[in-house]
């Protein structure tokens, strides 16, 4: 099976236990709500190719266990992530209060340049809301995060969250703010096509050999 894509981004899904991280990932990949599985232990892994501003991007997504003590284990996976979904549950202030810690971890362990989108999940449970949209959007602004309220149940804004995060990374690559070739950028080229755009001579030589992987 051949897969072609222009870029590969490493993504993380982080946030407290029970905020719906795995459900967001499942909704994104399978387009369906899944609430009948065991909770995540350690790390799970998923991938999907999406199309963003005429580029196809393969997202390699690491879904982590949320319980505090698992951080000593899951932190090892942060290294070299290009993007992250930082998830809290709009019906639980506690999960919102924990955001600062998650953020510090992500920026310290993944990369200073990691692009993070804050996701207020369980948007469908508006009646039980404990965190207002306004409050969270202020937090996002202060911490230079993108922000969306999502629902893994209905699918609202789920795809958008991943796409927006990927789009921002692409923009940063194009503006030169992010260098995919830097070690630990969390970004890889999918094939030679893009390099060709950026440095025609070098890539032409490479594109002769077709990559079979």
């Amino acid at each position, binding site marked *: 099976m051949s897969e072609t894509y222009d870029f590969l981004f490493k993504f993380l899904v982080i946030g407290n236990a029970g905020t719906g991280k795995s459900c967001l990932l499942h909704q994104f990949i399978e387009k369906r709500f899944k609430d009948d599985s065991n909770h995540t232990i*350690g790390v799970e892994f998923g991938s999907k190719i999406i199309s963003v501003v005429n580029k196809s991007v393969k997202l390699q997504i690491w879904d982590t266990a949320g319980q505090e003590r698992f951080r000593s284990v899951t932190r090892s996976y942060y290294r070299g992530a290009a993007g992250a979904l930082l998830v809290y549950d709009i019906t639980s202030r506690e999960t919102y209060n924990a955001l600062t810690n998650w953020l510090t971890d992500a920026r310290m362990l993944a990369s200073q340049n990691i692009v993070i989108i804050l996701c207020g999940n369980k948007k469908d449970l508006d009646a039980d809301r404990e965190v207002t949209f306004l409050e969270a959007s202020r937090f996002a602004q202060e911490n230079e995060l993108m922000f969306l309220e999502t629902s893994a149940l209905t699918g609202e804004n789920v795809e958008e969250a991943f796409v927006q995060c990927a789009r921002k990374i692409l923009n940063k690559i194009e503006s030169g703010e992010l260098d995919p070739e830097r070690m630990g950028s969390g970004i890889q080229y999918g094939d030679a096509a893009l390099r060709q755009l950026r440095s025609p001579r070098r890539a032409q030589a490479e594109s002769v050999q077709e990559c079979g992987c």
Partner: protein
Amino acid sequence: MEKRFDKQSTECLTNSDSKAYQRVDRYGFEKSEDFKHEFHEELKADYVAVLTRRSKKWSKLLQDTERVEKNMKVKRYVRKGIPCEYRSEIWMACSGAQDQLESNAGYYDSLLKIEHDSKLEEVIRADMHRTFPDNIQFRVSSQPCLQNALFNILLAYGHHNKDVGYCQGMNFIAGYLLIITKDEEKSFWLLDALLSRILTDYYTPNMLGLRVDQEVLGELVKMKVPAVWETMKRHDVMWTLVVSRWFICLYVDILPVETVLRIWDCLFFEGSKILFRVALTLIRHHQTLISQSQSLPEICERFKQIIRGEYVEDCHSFMQKIFMEPGGLSSATITKFRKMWRNNITADTKTPH
């Protein structure tokens, strides 16, 4: 509070509805969609013969003894599998849980009566609907619903062992204990045997025991399956990525139920070394497959592949292999590596980043 379950009604889940019976295994787990009936029928027939033979032997063994002793004969018997009907009793006896239960009569109940830490309660409750949703005994609609018993055990344990409190993964372990013992108090003491004696520091907040053992496995793989070790190194894959779940869940939800129970037979009798034997066998047997991986995701994928299929479904052969395939595995070696890695990790934690 319903604590002890009617033994007969749940002895070995039988269901008069033949359709439902086919969907669900004897422990209440729904069979996955890709369940291969033919292979299992064949396997079951062979295994039933084994079980019948073992059952007779065990019955004879237990007839002559007041209490199971830990000797070579029993060890050999345990490695060949404890029949379902004796499992609870043998686990209790050889893990020391029975002694604990007897010398602490009423203690479990008293833990349930004390004022509960509401935070602990909340964290445990959040995992109840996420523990074996594929098992009919854990459905809210079932009678009795094991969710309540599971909740009690975890809550009591959190108060009993404050260093551990509640760590995700304990729910799966306690869940299996309940399925086998059908008794809250016994499950509680078995959980205690595992967490405070057999797997020290696995579930404490820094999870040091677990982190050490993951690296110890790495050392053992380096010694015994160098090709895989090279592959892991080449792609810069940390052991925690592929095996943390194996160790935290003691293979629950990783390997087939019957295989897990056979592993636990040895875990209670012989201790944590068995976890390495299982991991090493899986890795060694599939070393070519793993070594051919071209990328980190591919390695992850293959580590998922090797825990499925006939090799692990055939629990009786698999259990024979774990004592053959990895070769000798001395306690001294494991102790040495554990000490080394405990020092490494502790030193690393102290160093400011």
